[in-house]
């Protein structure tokens, strides 16, 4: 069906002054869906990500970074020295032929070159522009710099990751760089749709920090309503048990989460209904939550002699025998191995489909993730 349709953003041109993670990902959605996106980079100081590994063939070079390539495919690239006397004027001439401007500089930089929204939209009211620095255009932190790796700290991610009683961990990646671009794009496309219907552009002051706070689940209201400041609790959960990550005999990790009674019943069946499952104190969700330590002991004991078998058929072909816990467990219960590559070979080799949201931000069709030692 979609084959016959026009790509949604075909005919739109984007002047992309953004750099590193967030901005280039936002403009990549537009590019992947038909927009002509022109990355404008300094001709004297290549953007940070071009120096980032992994590099192809082990040879560093501004055009060899897989990191950069991953976020900037589908785009055109031009260089421009904004510090040259003629630079800003060339940039303005380029913007005059564009529908959208994206940028992620520290507030004030674009204005320094006469590239702020007020200047760029002087003779036209259809220009749509989004600025995406870490903390927004105003406020005492407005000038603060940093990357997604540290913004995740300000945004609560590190505090909420790790084991209780131990220091915060957080992710080993620039996590908010992959949280906030989607949110930015929702607002940007909404404004673009408004422009399509009315001809009116506008300016979007997007602060990455402010978007990231929406990724905190119930943590904000738990504090403002209940006075409970959520904190990291390993792989346990505020509400559910069992809820943990266990180590199998072969060193691989398995997560088991039972959020509903249905999940719990399925797990019991998968385990072969051992006696401890049917104890009175395991009957209700809040009771199990109290007994999480005992549950963890039982499940770890069970997994101590569990080994992952790569020859096992994919889940849909596996026998559905509730009395055979080892083979049947994976089917009805909400648990899985950590590595998507080993656990989910079919899923990891799938190709892009038309207009899948996840694909519009996808960094590629195939590989993913993680090792299990």
């Amino acid at each position: 069906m979609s084959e016959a349709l026009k790509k949604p953003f075909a005919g739109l041109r984007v002047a992309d002054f953004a750099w590193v993670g967030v901005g280039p990902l936002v403009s990549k959605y537009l590019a992947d869906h038909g927009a002509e996106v022109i990355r404008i980079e300094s001709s004297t100081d290549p953007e940070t990500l071009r120096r980032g590994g992994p590099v192809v063939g082990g040879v560093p070079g501004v055009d060899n970074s897989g990191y950069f390539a991953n976020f900037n495919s589908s785009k055109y690239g031009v260089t421009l020295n904004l510090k040259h006397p003629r630079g800003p004027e060339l940039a303005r001439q380029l913007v005059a032929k564009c529908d959208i401007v994206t940028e992620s500089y520290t507030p004030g930089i674009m204005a320094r070159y006469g590239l702020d929204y007020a200047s760029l939209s002087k003779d036209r009211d259809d220009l749509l522009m989004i600025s995406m620095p870490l903390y927004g255009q105003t406020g005492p932190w407005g000038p603060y710099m940093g990357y997604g790796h540290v913004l995740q700290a300000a945004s609560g991610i590190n505090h909420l990751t790790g084991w209780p009683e131990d220091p915060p961990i957080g992710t080993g990646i620039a996590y908010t760089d992959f949280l906030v671009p989607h949110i930015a794009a929702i607002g940007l496309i909404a404004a673009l749709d408004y422009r399509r219907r009315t001809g009116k552009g506008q300016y979007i002051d997007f602060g990455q920090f402010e978007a990231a706070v929406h990724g905190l689940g119930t943590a904000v209201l738990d504090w403002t309503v209940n006075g409970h400041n959520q904190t990291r609790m390993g792989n346990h959960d505020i509400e559910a048990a069992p809820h943990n990550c266990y180590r199998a005999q072969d060193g691989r990790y398995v997560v088991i989460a039972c959020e509903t009674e249905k999940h719990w019943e399925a797990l019991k069946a998968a385990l072969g209904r051992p006696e401890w499952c049917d104890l009175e104190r395991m009957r209700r969700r809040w009771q199990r939550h109290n007994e999480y330590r005992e549950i963890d002991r039982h499940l770890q004991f069970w997994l101590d002699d569990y080994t992952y078998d790569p020859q096992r058929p994919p889940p849909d072909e596996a026998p559905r025998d509730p009395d055979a816990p080892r083979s049947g467990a994976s089917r009805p219960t909400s648990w899985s191995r950590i590595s998507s590559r080993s656990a989910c070979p079919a899923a990891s080799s799938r190709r892009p489909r038309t207009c899948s949201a996840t694909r519009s931000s996808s960094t590629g069709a195939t590989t993913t993730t993680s090792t299990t030692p």
Partner: protein
Amino acid sequence: MASSPVPIPHPSGPLAGYRVLDFSDEKGQLCARFLGELGADVIKVEPPRTGDLTRGRGPFFRGEEGLETSLWWWTMNAGKRSITCQLQLSAGRELVQKLVAQADIVIETCMPPTAADIGLDYATLSAANPGIVVVSITNFGQTGPYRSWQATDMVGAAMGGLMSVTGDPERGPVRILAPQALTQANIQAGVGAMTALYARGVNGGVGQHVDVSMQEAVVNALDHSSPTYDILGIDIFGPGIRRVNNGQLGARYLYEAKDGWVAALQAGHLIGPGANAIIDWLAETGEANGLDAPEWREKLTALVPLSVEDRTRVEETMIAFCRTRMKEDLVREAQARNAGWAPVFSPAEIVESKQLAARDYFVRVNHEDIGESFTYAGAPWKLSETPWAQRGRAPHLGEHNEDVYGELLGLEPADLRRLRMKMVI
């Protein structure tokens, strides 16, 4: 009847005039809420009496479990309308078909292939309205061997790889307590919904089906993991408190301050082109630990990976420096020296943040039903022409039955009584 207190009208939002039917669980409610805050009329459709299952998801207002006290419900469904409709009954499905004819977007999260059982599959919905955009958000997508697998947020984080790049080398993978797999599914579905809505506008009103997998949404959030595996064959695992560069564990980025923790990449920028500014800072206070010697300055700014021994010395210098200082002081001074540090904030500290206060970020939401108001997260976008707006508290179960069924389907109170008695609504 008296006009409902929620949702607050928002005619100036960019999506004003669009209507969204929200049948979703945790995987789609935030997505629908964002569309509502941008102006769309979002109608949450729930089973009669029991209500949406997520009304049972804690934590609860003052710990009291109940249909109207879930903080999950409050957070993710604020500003929507709620109607009840029993999709197990054909009469209920007929009502939905009529609503779909007047809607622009449907968001559903049925486990494949069960959507067809309750009339929420794309074929049925597009028959009722060829322009409808149907966003299906599921654990593993509409196809593939895992499509009927159960999953929770942690399973999504596990099988999407996020727990792997978040683990600790000694203790194994660890989750982020705030549900990131669900968040990623929601926001990426939001981009898909908006893209499909825009596509409809430029393609003569033709809708489409948007297939979103929570697992794939998490995979999209793994930074350089994919090219690192693709190019180097290295599968990132368990960096703990370190940044991963080129598939190798880099310098630690978390340091303990006197009153908490700070995040500071490259050992607080002691390693890298800007290192001299931080070395000077340490030297000014007499805590450079010898790193201000010319040969160290050269080594630290050289862009050549340090030996583990050297890196350890640099990290130990930074550990000792941070330990005696307050985190906000550290961050302010580091920023003044062009180093992008940030404090590790808890949810409470985020709510108290001076930056967010200066930008009037948080909003007060009136819960007139319990006579109180509470602070909610604010605008993710400051749009100059068509603003974002918080649209009031989450709806009570079926609070807008009369409004919606009356306004959209022309049903009279007597009709609704009859439907209620037949357990349709």
